[in-house]
């Protein structure tokens, strides 16, 4: 992106005005779609923090995403519908689970780390699916959306703005985090764990912190998606969901601040657009992904400009 175009204000301005715009075009249906994009952008951004900043190729992010959704659904079933309580609870449970998983998984590296995170996520998938309380294979519907006084989440546009606000807050928070002492130490660990170890940095603790933060944000995204979809479904926990989130990150740009957003918007947008023309949209999505990874190794953000790790 050249210096003359104020890229970021334009992006956020357009995003903010989206519901009014769609409403006036008579396309209110797409508000729900735009909300989904924002939620997946949040989930992909959280994974991008783990993969791009922490250098940890985690293949089980759906576990935290899905757990967030199930916490909201189960809390609702137990009579707790306040988002002020249920959403932080979703983040806390996702973080706690990630802490336990990370403690074991971070002993391994490379392909083995990919595989062990995948295995733990599958364990969580099968555990949740086996419990009748959580609705088994059918998932768990929400009686209503969470209540977030003073906002009314039953309004589609309000849910959109809340998702947008949370995405913006997370992006800002992760940017500050990356610029902090912690962020610089993490960058060091990503580039050369051995040297950082020798310099006296607690390498595994730094990686664990990164893994847990990413999971907490994914839990929040899951809580949002449960509200958007009106249910928590096992598909959110399945390994293909982890794969999809990872695909969004790689497609958007690993380690790029907007990588998650670009990837989610491009993938979901392409799917939605193709669905208008063909029943077999995944065929073309797959071909497009192959083309991108062959010709643009740094993802879409890499195509847009060289603003890496901003």
């Amino acid at each position, binding site marked *: 992106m050249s210096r003359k175009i104020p890229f970021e204000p334009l992006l956020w301005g357009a995003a903010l005005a989206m519901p009014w715009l769609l409403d006036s075009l008579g396309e209110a249906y797409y508000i729900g779609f735009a909300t989904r994009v924002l939620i997946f952008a949040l989930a992909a951004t959280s994974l991008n923090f783990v*993969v791009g900043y922490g250098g940890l*190729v985690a*293949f089980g992010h759906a576990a935290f995403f899905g757990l967030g959704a199930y916490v909201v659904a189960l809390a609702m079933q137990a009579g707790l519908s306040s988002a002020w309580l249920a959403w932080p609870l979703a983040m806390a449970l996702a973080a706690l689970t990630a802490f336990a998983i990370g403690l*074991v998984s971070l*002993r*391994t590296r*490379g*392909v*083995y780390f*990919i*595989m*062990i995170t*995948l*295995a*733990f996520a*599958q*364990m969580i998938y*099968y*555990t949740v*699916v*086996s*419990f*009748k309380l959580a609705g088994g294979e059918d998932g768990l519907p929400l009686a209503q959306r969470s209540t977030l006084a003073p906002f009314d989440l039953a309004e589609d546009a309000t849910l959109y703005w809340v998702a947008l606000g949370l995405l913006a807050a997370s992006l800002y928070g992760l940017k500050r985090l990356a610029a902090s002492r912690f962020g610089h130490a993490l960058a060091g660990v990503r580039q050369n764990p051995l040297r950082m170890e020798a310099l006296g940095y607690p390498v595994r603790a730094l990686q664990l912190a990164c893994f847990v933060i990413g999971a907490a944000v994914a839990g929040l995204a899951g809580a949002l998606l449960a509200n958007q979809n009106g249910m928590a479904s096992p598909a959110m926990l399945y*390994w*293909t969901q982890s*794969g*999809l989130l*990872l*695909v969004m990150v*790689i*497609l958007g740009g*690993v380690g790029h601040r907007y990588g998650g957003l670009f990837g989610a918007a491009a993938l979901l947008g392409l799917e939605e657009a193709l669905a208008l023309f063909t*029943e*077999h*949209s*995944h*065929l073309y*999505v*797959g*071909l497009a*992904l*192959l083309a991108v*990874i*062959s010709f643009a*190794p740094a993802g879409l953000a890499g195509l847009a400009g060289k603003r890496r790790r901003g």
Partner: protein
Amino acid sequence: MTQLILEQALNGLQFGLMLFLIAAGLTLVFGIMDMIHLSHGSLYMGGAYLGAAAAQASGSFLVGLSAAVLGMAVIGVLLETAVLRHFYRRDHLAQVLATFALILISNDLVRMIWGPQPLLLNPPEALAGPIELFGFSYPAYRLLIIAVGLGIALALYWLIGHTRAGMWVRAGAANRAMAEALGVDVRRLFTGLFALGAALAALAGVLLGPLLAVQVGMGENILILAFVVIVIGGIGSIRGALVGSLLVGIVDTLGRALLPTLLRAVAPADVASQLGPALASIAIYLLMAGVLFWRPAGLFPARA
């Protein structure tokens, strides 16, 4: 009770041997090329569909089986030379994206050609009934699967352990750069290996077809099990894949059959009925996490 355990152990052996057919190819792709290959499950699915279609058209299970194995070997060569070859030197993330894309493509291709409904694949008629075995009856078809699985395992053992090509493969898995420096054409070797892996996956797809459903998405389930197998066994090791497959097959099958009953003896019925299936389905993942925790490179590390 002993009869149940024996029967389930045979089922576990049968499932484990089928897993081995899939994992054997996958572990070599991983081990020699250091390639994350998520679309190996699609080769399995493709084999099952080709086999079911050819069997329906010809009325013969054997024709379906041969068509699937040969067809997928050819498709494997095409896939390797046209797409996968370009990703060996890329990082794991690029490989994940490319092979995930291949899953999306192949699932939709199958849906385009054969429709969304599962295909029916019948076992050969001569083997449709049960056989008396040590005083209990066991399906003849499952016995055939066990026999074929054992035969393939022996053949692979001979191929990898006692032939020149097998020596190259082992050398490639232990240290690829060194093997190349010593004059092994790893590229060509690997195309052949990939075709073999695709043919074995197809064989498993057709053999399991009459027992499990031939449907879109069948590859995704089995792929993760194959991953578990090769991580337990040690990436790149055929012997590890065999041990891992049998462990996973037997633990999974026996766990599903026995854990709910065992739990009922020590816990209240309603707790047991929920906890049993949950524990049974996560047993193999616990096994894998445990192996990785104590033996981070698997049971039979191939890397020198």
